[in-house]
């Protein structure tokens, strides 16, 4: 078991190195750089700047150096814990990302808890009571959940809350806490609001996971080991939860790794619609503005989260299944 975790930990740095190259190449891929888009924006506003000035800025930002040098400077700084500075915001990336990342992770985690807490029981009931009334209800809800774009759901909820209760549910903080320093009261305020976008984000995933659990469990319920457990005299619910369910949820747990980045990017539209100070809109803005070190750092952070998520799911799977543990 320890060896198993150690092996995976040892691979992580190599994966990160590869991801950093890919992230950098992707960001460099669009024609031009931060300055070209900066100048274009200035021109739109009616301002223009001289050629020398541009060259000076380009030198200042290091954009005149060869691409690979830029890459190594970036990675070198990252290794020393320096996430760089945003061209556009003229602030350190660490500062820009920090709080947003924390809020995003909180929201994602809550959303994941919602997803599993609703989807796994729903999938189990649906399978055990196949073709019953409750199975049909859950199946219909699943289709609705899958078919409803989450930003639409967000809009509907916002409209409903405002229309019925006169409450604005956008943002993650009440107006008096938006700019306030962190305190217990601010955390409580955030928690009282964050569950709503988390729930909105959870809907599609819940529908999907419930369907996966239902299908897997239906397979497992026919297996001889389930029948053998029944032939032993175990009560039905106890045996269903102890034996086939444990096998049926393994594929759900194995998706933990990519669930995190998917929620991060999937939450983008919802974040924009509900004006949530999460990381998605920041990444979008940095990509549009070719704010390359900010964008690169965020993408690399996504990779780190994916690796951590995959490691977590590997550990959970190993705890669940001795065949993985001993492999």
């Amino acid at each position, binding site marked *: 078991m320890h060896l198993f975790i150690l092996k995976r930990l040892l691979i992580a740095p190599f994966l990160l190195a590869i991801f950093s190259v890919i992230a950098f190449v992707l960001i460099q891929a669009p024609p031009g750089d931060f300055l070209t888009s900066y100048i274009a924006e200035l021109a739109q506003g009616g301002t223009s700047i001289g050629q020398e000035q541009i060259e000076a800025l380009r030198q200042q930002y290091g954009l005149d150096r060869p691409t690979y040098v830029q890459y190594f400077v970036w990675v070198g700084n990252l290794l020393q814990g320096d996430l760089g500075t945003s061209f556009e915001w003229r602030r350190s990336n660490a500062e820009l990302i920090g709080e947003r990342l924390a809020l995003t992770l909180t929201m994602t985690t809550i959303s994941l808890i919602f997803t599993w807490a609703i989807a796994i029981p729903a999938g189990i009931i649906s399978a055990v009571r196949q073709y019953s009334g409750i199975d049909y209800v859950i199946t219909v809800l699943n289709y609705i959940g899958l078919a409803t774009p989450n930003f639409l759901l967000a809009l509907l909820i916002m409209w409903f809350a405002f229309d019925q209760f006169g409450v604005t549910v956008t943002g993650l903080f009440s107006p008096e806490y938006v700019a306030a320093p962190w305190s217990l009261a601010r955390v409580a305020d955030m928690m009282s609001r964050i569950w709503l976008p988390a729930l909105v984000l959870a809907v599609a995933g819940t529908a999907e996971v419930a369907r996966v659990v239902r299908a897997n469990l239906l397979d497992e319920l026919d297996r*001889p*080991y389930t029948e053998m457990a029944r032939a032993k*005299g*175990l009560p039905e619910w106890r045996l269903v939860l102890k*034996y086939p369910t444990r*096998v049926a949820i393994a594929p759900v747990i194995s998706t933990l790794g990519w669930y995190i980045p998917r929620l991060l990017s999937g939450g983008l539209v919802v974040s924009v619609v509900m004006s949530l100070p999460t990381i998605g809109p920041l990444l979008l803005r940095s990509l549009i503005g070719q704010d390359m070190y900010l964008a690169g750092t965020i993408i690399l952070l996504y990779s780190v989260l994916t690796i951590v998520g995959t490691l977590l799911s590997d550990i959970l799977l190993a705890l669940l299944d001795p065949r993985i543990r001993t492999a």
Partner: protein
Amino acid sequence: MNEDRGDVVLSVRNLKTHFPTDDGVVKAVDGVTFDLHQGEVLGVVGESGCGKSITMKSVMQLVGKPGRIVDGQILFKRNRDGTNTEEVDIAKLRTNGKKIREIRGGDIALIPQEPMASFSPLHSIGSQIVEAVMLHQDVSKQEAKRIAIEKLNEVGMPSAEQRFDAYSWQLSGGLRQRAIIALALACNPSILIADEPTTAIDVTTQAQILELLKRLQREHGSSILFITHDLGVIAQLADHVVVMYLGRVMEQGAVSDVFTHPRHPYTRALLASIPSLHSEPRIELPTVAGGIPHPLQRPNGCPFHPRCPDAIPGTCDVAMPKLLDVEQSKVACFLHHDEAEEADA
């Protein structure tokens, strides 16, 4: 019938287990009658799909949806503590109710066909045996573990103590089968139901497992319902035999009698297709002339008549013969008597 058989412990009478499907009702078991006596091995043979497994599942109330016991009785003499006996009609019990759960594993245990797939791969075999022990006996966890190891030893599991913590996929086919038998024996059941327990393992191991079952049956005096395709195995192991075809019993009697004097044309056809019973004990059930009809297209009258060389036109295709005593055995065939079942409403 033989007078020296023990008391009847399980009496299946006119059992009907049907599956309503979109295309019609599959009458998987349609009027099966047999008695299992104390301390005997009752073999059940018949071609694939004739309802052997569904009969056994019915006995444990394990028939999966949409199947249902629609008629008949399964009278079981329940005798846990050796003193007072109660008679339970299992056919009337609620599926997964408390009573049947006490009987399952406790009084009637299953030795399934696929030992590999019958243990959960995620739990050690020891924990799965302990679970069964603790379900039916009021013992501590340590005591249950002691019993489990004792049972593993009893079925000849080498280094049982270490194997207690093993997973099923770490064992060879033969050891897995032994572990499953230990699980079945965990609560000293009075009846063992073995559904083709040796089809998945090689010949040598198969012989060892049969030897083991024979020994256990002698030592515990338990009764075994043994399902197989293999007439050789029946000859080797069973005292009595039930020959099934399309959900009905065709013939039934002592193995020594039925195998030497088969009376039903179906039994004769089965036996004729084995070159030599004693020199070649592992011939699978042969192809009797013609195919088995589709379960939804059961012939009228005797279900075997379309394939029967001796069918009497106007009789066998009209009515179903009753299962009646003919000399020492019971036969359902108009060649031997002329009593028919009353037609179903």
